[in-house]
């Protein structure tokens, strides 16, 4: 059961920066940029994921954070910290728990560095996933103070998904995507598939060093 036929080679960190300008909105694979060897520090690609880079424009989307407060997605993204974003729903049983577990492990493995990141999980089943339900879900994954879950109207959730090219219509058709941006103004690194926490950490370090 091969769920994702990923690129065989990893996107090297040194390529992310120059290509971000060239390939706005286009997956690197389409641009034909492939590395011959994994760059130092980058996790080796597997059939579990593929990595590309995009320049997403985030529209004004009003969401409800798991503490019940109404927020603007752009404010949450642009608070100066590195952003790790994924889309989940609490009644999802296969991919989302794995994705959330990876966030959980990643947050723990960051140790003292965790204050420099913001983990954002947006529900794609917002009418079911009330703030209270999201808090329960967050607790289950031992979410620390750097990790918030978001709900809102159906339209807001769809708008957020569309902004990052992850909207698939119905929630059962979702695919696992993680989006990483080391700082406001930097390009978004998109991971289709699932990276382990260790691989995510490796990617983060590499982006910090080279990106």
């Amino acid at each position, binding site marked *: 059961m091969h769920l994702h036929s990923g690129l065989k080679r990893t996107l090297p960190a040194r390529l992310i920066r120059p290509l971000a300008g060239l390939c706005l909105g286009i997956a690197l694979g389409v641009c034909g940029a492939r590395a011959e060897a994994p760059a130092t520090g980058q996790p080796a690609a597997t059939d*579990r994921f593929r990595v590309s880079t995009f320049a997403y424009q985030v529209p004004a989307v009003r969401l409800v954070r798991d503490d019940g407060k109404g927020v603007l997605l752009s404010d949450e993204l642009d608070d100066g910290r590195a952003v790790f974003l994924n889309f989940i729903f609490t009644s999802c049983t296969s991919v989302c728990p794995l994705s959330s577990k990876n966030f959980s492990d990643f947050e723990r493995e960051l140790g003292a560095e965790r204050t420099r990141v913001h983990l954002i999980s947006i529900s794609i089943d917002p009418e079911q996933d009330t703030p209270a339900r999201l808090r329960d879900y967050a607790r289950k994954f031992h979410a620390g103070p750097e990790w918030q879950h978001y709900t809102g109207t159906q339209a807001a959730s769809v708008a957020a998904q569309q902004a990052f090219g992850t909207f698939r*219509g119905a*929630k059962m058709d979702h695919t696992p995507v993680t989006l990483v941006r080391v700082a406001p103004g930097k390009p978004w690194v998109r991971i289709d598939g699932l990276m382990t926490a*260790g691989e995510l950490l490796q990617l983060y370090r590499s982006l910090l060093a080279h990106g």
Partner: protein
Amino acid sequence: MKRALFCWLSCAAGVLGAALACAATERRAPASPAAILKVGEAIYRRGVLPSGAPLVGQRAAGATVEGVDAACTRCHRRSGLGVMEGRGSSIPPISGLYLFKPRSHDDNDLPFVESMRAERDPYTEATLARAIREGIAADGRPLGYLMPRFALDDAAMAELIAYLKVLTPRRMPGVTDTELHFATVITPDADPLKRTAMLDVLTQYFSDKNAAYRNTAPRLRSGRPVMFRVTRRWQLHVWELSGAADTWEAQLAAHLAKEPVFAVISGIGGRTWAPVHRFCERTGLPCLMPNVDLPDAAPDDFYTVYFSKGVLLEAELIAHDLAARAVKAQRIVLLFRAGDIGEQAAAAFTAAIGASGTTVINRRLPAHGGDLRRALSGPGLVDAWVLWLRPGDLEVLAQRPPPAGSLYVSGLMSELEQAPLPESWRPATRMPYLFDLPDQRRVRLDYQLGWFAARKIKVSSLRIQSDTFLACGLLAETISHMVDAFQRDYLVERLDDNIEHRILTGYYPRLSLGIGQNFGSKGGYLVHFAEPKGAKLARDSEWIVP
């Protein structure tokens, strides 16, 4: 001991052939097949090991899952027939037949499911145990990364495998080679006009559904056995209940014994639906989208699906609205009739409003009669009124001016935009409205209205008829998604997964279900009458999901 147990079960259940070697090496008092299955079922559905400890699974990528999150049912579903979740994320069926049956070209008893692995070699018990423990498929390839590895001991493994074998698809009641049987349930307290309105739609829908089979088109049969029977007729059984509610479950059991059906579709209730709900959950009978304003679903219920939470959702919306308006609500009076659905709605409201500084006064009117004139007076200052009353009672109350304070009227109980509210009450009265507003839903209803008109169905209760038509349409779509795998659990799972794709959703802006979700539509508006007369509504809120 594992083998002994396993053989015992297999022989008793008639699942396995005689080929199994029953070499018992240990002896203990044989447990009943049901007891063994319970152990396997606990692992499968709840992730609980025979010792009572939680099941623990390890995924290749390093993540650990535990307890109910590790249970097989979480991905492979209760039916064991798997699912296509996400694009390309395919969870295969793991019920016995799909795992163990040798493949052949003349396979005509293996119902098609989307995620089946037709090309894979059949498992043996040994290779299945290896798959569960080490993540290696029958053909030696690694399983997908979503599949955890479980360090089950031999006894637990045997019990789980025994359960998988029993889980195998079998001929369901109400499913024959040529017919699919469904029932609809009518309780004696259902409104007689709405009952007729619903039955008009149901019987016509079934008749239409079967009309295609009356023509001379050749049936899809051939000399060799074929897998798919595409010419099954739909047969509707109307189960009319009578007498006291505590006798309904026995009546339903008698109906089901006499007329075995695959599922209950639509139906109509009055003051309570709980006995029907309980019966369906207890007997594992899907009970889909009945016309009831007080559904009765507990968190773990599986077989019952409703369009919405009805008056319970209204209660939550009103509580939400009071909080959102920052209404100083120290004293709230709830008005309802004993034994009517407003009584439970009032309880749900009290729970939703919370305890802090609010006094909720339940004014419980007798089931019939009583003096309504004094129902809207003090004692003392009342900040908010919530009226869970039928149109007849409202008409009497509304002969007097509206009371001071915030005023809410149940939409479902008072017939929504047909509520008999006079001009003096209209600006002051808010109503929870669990549907798309009339102007917004009109386009979606046009198709249904055309269908009713073409078939000369009198539209006497549009909401009931629209919901009934929608229920039939969803059933037809779900059945077509099932191809030939007519299992009751699978019916519910397919409905859960596919309802979001429905385009014409009748009265509802959107329908969505999922694992552990029993209500298709989850929110509503607060509205008031826009004009002194007529049915035009104005919105007081956005769509709220409390």
